[in-house]
């Protein structure tokens, strides 16, 4: 039954929201330890402001944590379906 499946908004929330919070923590930890001005990403010196580096850093962390969240969700959901095969085509 289609409606029984988790709606797309809640899937998005389940992936994007926890990863958002973890990305904040990761960004805080990372940039407390490293000053963007001391970093040479891929061996290059960047012209981007600190605010820009923090923001990009945060977005990259968010992307990575979200990808991990998608993986977790995918395995959790497909495992559920395997255990209750009815839920797919009821």
């Amino acid at each position: 039954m289609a409606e029984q499946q988790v709606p797309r908004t809640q899937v998005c929330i389940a992936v994007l929201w926890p990863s958002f919070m973890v990305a904040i923590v990761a960004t805080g930890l990372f940039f407390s330890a490293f000053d963007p001005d001391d970093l040479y990403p891929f061996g290059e010196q960047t012209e981007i402001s600190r605010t820009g580096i923090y923001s990009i850093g945060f977005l990259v962390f968010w992307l990575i944590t979200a990808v991990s969240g998608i993986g977790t969700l995918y395995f959790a959901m497909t495992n559920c379906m395997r255990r209750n095969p009815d839920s797919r085509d009821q």
Partner: protein
Amino acid sequence: MTSPASSGSPGGPKSDDHVEQSLYAKAEKIYPREVHGLFARLRTLGVLGLLGLYYILPWMRWDGHQALLFDLPARKFYIFSVTLWPQDFFYLAVMLILAGLLLFFVTALAGRIWCGYACPQTVWTEAFLWIERKVEGDRMKQQKLDALPLNGRKFRIKATKHFLWLAFAAWTGFTFVGYFTPIIELGQRLLSFNLGPWETFWVIFYGFATYGNAGFMREQVCKYMCPYARFQSAMFDSDTLIVSYLPERGEPRGSRKRSADPTALGLGDCIDCTLCVQVCPTGIDIRNGLQYECIACSACIDACDDVMDKMGYEKGLIAYTTENAMEGKKTSIFRPRIIIYAVFLVSIMAAFAYSFSQRIPLGLDVIRDRNTLYRETNEGLIENVYILKILNMDKLQHQYELTVSGIPGLTLHKDMASIVVASGGVQELPVRLRADEAELVARSSDVVFSLVAIDNDKLSVTEDARFLGPQ
């Protein structure tokens, strides 16, 4: 104990399947009815106080700087008279742990009062609801308006509401960014349409988050997104303050005339007016028992007390109570859980305060020159090169004296005659250490740099480094 996490089924007896389905169904819009009373006044006070703080704080000045500024571009946090550096990350982490423990403590004692009165989600939702009521009218008018097909009048009302919401949200986003970059300069750049790309991004990002969360998501944030709502039940026990309906007094519920004698009709005190359901911002029926959706805002208490007054019954059919009190047992405040939380809280606070008072506002980093391990001077001595980074985190400028020890006869050479660092300044200082090869017992020896302020010997730090030689 009844775990608030194990949700009672809202809306009557349904099978588990149905409950699950209703959780996953498209959420229906909740129109919380406006409520007046003691707790509504307390909440308004909370909302005004907290929103006021949020919007005014970044404009306050202290000692010539913004009173509260997490200056990310400059990597310094100003918290009134305290300035924190990245080196002080530890203190920020401890502060967060303290805030978490405080929340545990308060939750064990008084339940979810954080949710009902102080959570930003509640506070901004209240503000958005207030705007909605001012524009669209009360609950009935809002429901009627939403049922209408789109016409000129409806469009005008909705457009006004969304314009006000967006303006308020944009101001919220601007203020948010103002906590991380000096707000006065930010305002000047905004007025001259000169905001940086990332500042613009974050104003819009936070503005939309506010608009979405307070305007549309509302109680769904508490139900589906809030981690605290999920685990708060772990802090609950039978002595925790909860908002509860007293079924022994209320049941059997039923409508009756004001003049009727409920005992003669075989009825309890609940007149089944459903006002408690109508005022609930999360759309639950408190009469079904403790539910995890309940944010303990006590709107239902106010609504019910009002009805009880009108009926001439005693107030408190829905009330702040504890599970023990409901069962006629004694409620104890000082119980192991509370005492343990309190002991943790107080000891960490004391350790934090002590450690903070002993904080030395001076930092020294020693970085070995990476190009050469060591070199031999013309005099036949072994020389190592280091870059020292001196951070003066004090409010005054200081002159410092640098010494080094660890190897007999070790000498220090630097190009600068005196080391003067301004308040809040960072000074890079290249230094060379020379030692006689005969004194080196191993390939690597430990040396210690000591830095002390000449005018204040309490401002002193030491930093270990390694001295490499040929052996």
